């Protein structure tokens, strides 16, 4: 069976690119080298077979032309459409999506607003001292996961990049490194740690602030216990950080989604900046979906801003808290939505899903999902990284090109959006 090597996995922000896939009879048969979650993605699942149009309670099969035409009518008629998702498709799709949002004068946003959007906001306040993953592989002797659980969410991260792997200056791999995990519970990742620090929920901000005080020589203002963590453990951690040769903090939803959100991240980044006075340190967000980073990159170079971009004025207006997807949904402001490569009906708070279900909804995705269940138009697309090529950006912003492994009859997200854009321009008389 012919094996395709150096396949780029299209699941999470690790973007592992050494996957080996056996293809036979135009189908993926075996996947080697990927983690359990990546393997499931590449092997595939039952999928949408045909475009669908809603008639009452049911979704009925139709042609691509009918679906795209109806979708264009919905979006062109909307006064404030929301174009959301984007993180599970390639950058080539994003470019068409952003142009479409500009033509429609809509709000375009990606999953970062429920993932590392707060990180972006913190970065816009203090910056981001970071590196690519290979710097960790080759130099890091102190690895900290804070509010992140790579064993479950980024399966190959520790093996390929951050802990187990050997590097130029770390030839013994894990033996050359210390692993610290900070979390509210003993996750699967925490069980691997040399040091596990348990923080009370919503208290990470205090713990980070305490660490900064200690690092900067103000340990005397720190109480005996902070956020459930005894002071001596924090003093110990601060010392480890200051004396590391190269330390890195990987952080996740534990910091972005708990109370204080971007303020947590601002503290974590500031802690790393403080540590620069003593040694080399870096901090990196664990990006979730494989191309959430890519959308933020494309959106930034094309509109000037990374997500939650409102184009109603004809230029980009960026104000998360006002222009993010959950904002316009919870305020019931959008009157139509286009969801591409994402599943907000599964991942948004119920009250936002309620409004999403009420308004005319167009969904472009290979798979049936809670979002397709409430849609008015469903357009199936090819699976990027398996059936379609394109660009994706890893969590450390390294861009790679996804491969096409098999032929498909499904249109790609890019093709669907281009046709949709064409139809919209026709309706608006802008051809």
């Amino acid at each position, binding site marked *: 069976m012919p094996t395709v*090597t*150096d396949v*780029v996995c299209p699941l999470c922000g690790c973007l592992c*690119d*050494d996957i080996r896939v056996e293809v036979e009879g135009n189908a993926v048969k075996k996947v080697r080298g990927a983690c359990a979650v990546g393997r499931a993605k590449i092997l595939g699942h039952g999928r949408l077979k045909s475009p669908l149009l809603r008639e009452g309670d049911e979704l009925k099969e139709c042609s691509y032309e009918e679906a795209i035409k109806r979708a264009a009518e919905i979006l062109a008629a909307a006064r404030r459409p929301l174009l959301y998702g984007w993180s599970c498709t390639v950058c080539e799709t994003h*470019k068409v999506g952003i142009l479409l949002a*500009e033509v429609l004068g809509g709000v375009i946003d990606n999953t970062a607003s429920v993932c590392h959007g707060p990180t*972006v906001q913190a*970065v*816009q*306040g*203090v*910056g*981001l*001292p*970071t*590196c*690519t*993953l*290979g*710097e960790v*592989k*080759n*130099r890091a002797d102190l690895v900290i996961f804070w509010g992140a659980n790579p064993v479950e969410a980024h399966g190959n991260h520790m093996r*390929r*990049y951050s802990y187990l792997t*050997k*590097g*130029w*200056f770390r030839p013994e791999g894990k033996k050359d490194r210390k692993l610290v995990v900070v979390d509210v519970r003993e996750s699967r990742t925490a069980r691997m740690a040399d040091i596990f620090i348990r923080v009370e929920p919503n208290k990470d901000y205090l713990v980070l602030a305490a660490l900064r005080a200690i690092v900067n020589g103000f340990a005397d203002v720190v109480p005996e216990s902070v956020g459930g963590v005894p002071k001596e453990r924090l003093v110990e951690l601060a010392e480890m950080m200051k004396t590391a*040769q*190269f330390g890195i903090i990987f952080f996740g939803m534990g910091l972005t989604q708990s109370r204080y959100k971007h303020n947590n991240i601002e503290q974590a980044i500031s802690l790393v*900046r403080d540590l*620069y006075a003593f*040694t*080399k340190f*870096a901090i990196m967000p664990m990006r979730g979906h494989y191309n959430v980073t890519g959308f*933020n*990159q*494309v959106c*930034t*170079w*094309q*509109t*000037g*801003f*990374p997500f939650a971009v409102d*184009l109603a004025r*004809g*230029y*980009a207006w*960026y104000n998360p808290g006002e222009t993010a997807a959950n904002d316009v949904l919870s305020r019931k402001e959008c009157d139509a939505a286009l969801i591409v490569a994402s599943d907000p009906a599964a991942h948004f708070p119920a009250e936002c899903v309620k409004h999403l279900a009420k308004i005319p909804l167009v969904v472009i995705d290979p798979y049936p999902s809670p979002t397709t269940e409430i849609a008015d138009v469903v357009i199936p697309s090819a699976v990027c990284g398996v059936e379609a*090529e394109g*660009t994706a*950006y890893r969590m450390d*912003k*390294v*861009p*790679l*090109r996804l491969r096409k492994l098999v032929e498909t009859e499904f249109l790609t997200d890019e093709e669907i959006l281009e046709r949709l854009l064409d139809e919209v321009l026709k309706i608006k008389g802008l051809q």
Partner: protein
Amino acid sequence: MAELLIKNGIVFDPINGVKGEKMDICIKDGKVVESVSSEARVIDASGCIVMPGGVDAHTHVAGGKVNAGRLLRPEDGRKGLEPRTGVCRACSGYSVPNTFATGYRYAKMGYTFLMEPAMPPLKARHMHEELMDTPIVDKAGMPLLDNNWMTLQYAKSGDVEKLAAYIAWMINATKGYGVKIVNPGGTEAWGWRKNCGLEDPVPYFDVTPAEIIKALAEANERLSLPHSIHLHANRLGQPGNYETTLKTYDLVKGTKPSRKRQVMHATHVQFHSYGGTNWGNFESKADEIAKYVDQHEHVTIDLGAVMLGDTTTMTADGPMEYNLYLLTGRKWTNCDVELETGSGITPFLYSGKVAVNTIQWAIGMELALLVKDPWKVVLTTDHPNGGPFITYPILISLLMSRKRREEVMKEVHSVINERALLPTIERELDWYEVAVMTRGTPAKILGLHEHGKGHLGVGADADVAIYEISPEETDAGKIQKALLNAKYTIKGGEVVVKDGEVVAVPEGRTFYVDVRYEDEAVWKEMLSDLEKMFKEYYTVSLANYPVQDDYVPKPYVIKAGAAE
């Protein structure tokens, strides 16, 4: 295809020795031709200055750190908001404009070629994606090749042949234009939070920046690349660094150029022309640098002039950016790139109330005015480090008008009279010299004059800028206005700007070099070293590293080395 006849303009075409002659320019099928038929569309350029399209040899407009700069600064994004039109996409930004604004605004200034001077090879794909989204202008990018572990090892062992093989492989893999060097050795040392002066050995790799520079210069000439090495020297921004600068230039005095050009292009030299020993006695040494450049033929420079105002600094000089952050306490982003390079980004305000900034502002102009031969000077602000490219018209008007300089000097810090040279300089650039520094020199140093750029001789690309101003005009304000919004910009024979508005948005081409290294045995050895790097140390696979053709949909390929 379309014929154009530009009539009665006053033409400045330095490469062809045209210094302000009234003449017609004929265009057909995107090229300059001898004559056109009576069907040609006539553009009346009477009373206007006509020049080849501008060539910016060093401007940070596309790639990882540029985008990190945009993301870092939504406040900059909000400064330049322009709604979409029937022709143009929405625009944003001032010092870090979005890619569409970059293309439109450069075109409106009459520029038609941009060189992105620093791409980390691992992220080359990103730079190409942004270049693809930069409309109208032709463009290229240079990979950073001086802190790469392969380079460090070959420079240490003195193996110029293997280094040349590696450079060739990298330029091809990144679809790049030439060899970029930024704080050689120092950015690798920054991986451990250290830095290197010219003679300091890089930690672990035990090779000095001086050795790296010499080896890269030789490898560059060995491959006979169109451009020379393009160098951001060590100790950028530090008081007293001019000595390092001159020592650096001396390193390659004896290197034989493989083409009729310089052996080293030194970039944003303003930042490297500092005297004094600390910020308190900081002073201009532009005269020392200018003297050296006057006396030697192997070095060319670009200004990297500072413009007063807020901007965003971004370079691959990680340690220098960190120090700038320590100075200002403003936000700071850093990104080290495995096995290759790094970058730092922080906003900066050059204020005329601050002594040091005032001297910096003076130095950029001093270099332009003290170097006698304009063919050794390219006009840049190292956008956005010294200032945004949109300030070029202001810079040019200051260089052309002593009166204007004196007006501004009255408003800045009085230290300019003590520790800078600008008040003593009477020289004013004329239009010919301006055309040399913005068209002639940049095209020649890059080797682009052999590929249709920077001149209007028969066969050249029909890239033309028409400015509504008489060459006799001396008023700085009028000069600025005319240069900011061209009366016409023509790109590849198509009118893209008319009366300061963008009217067409063709896609430009990405220029890159395809270089062949012919010694098969050496090539094999280099490849085996490279494969080991990927297998053991990189986090991407060798097969996924090279930039695919999909990222250069409109390529212009220049062959070099054994491929020529």
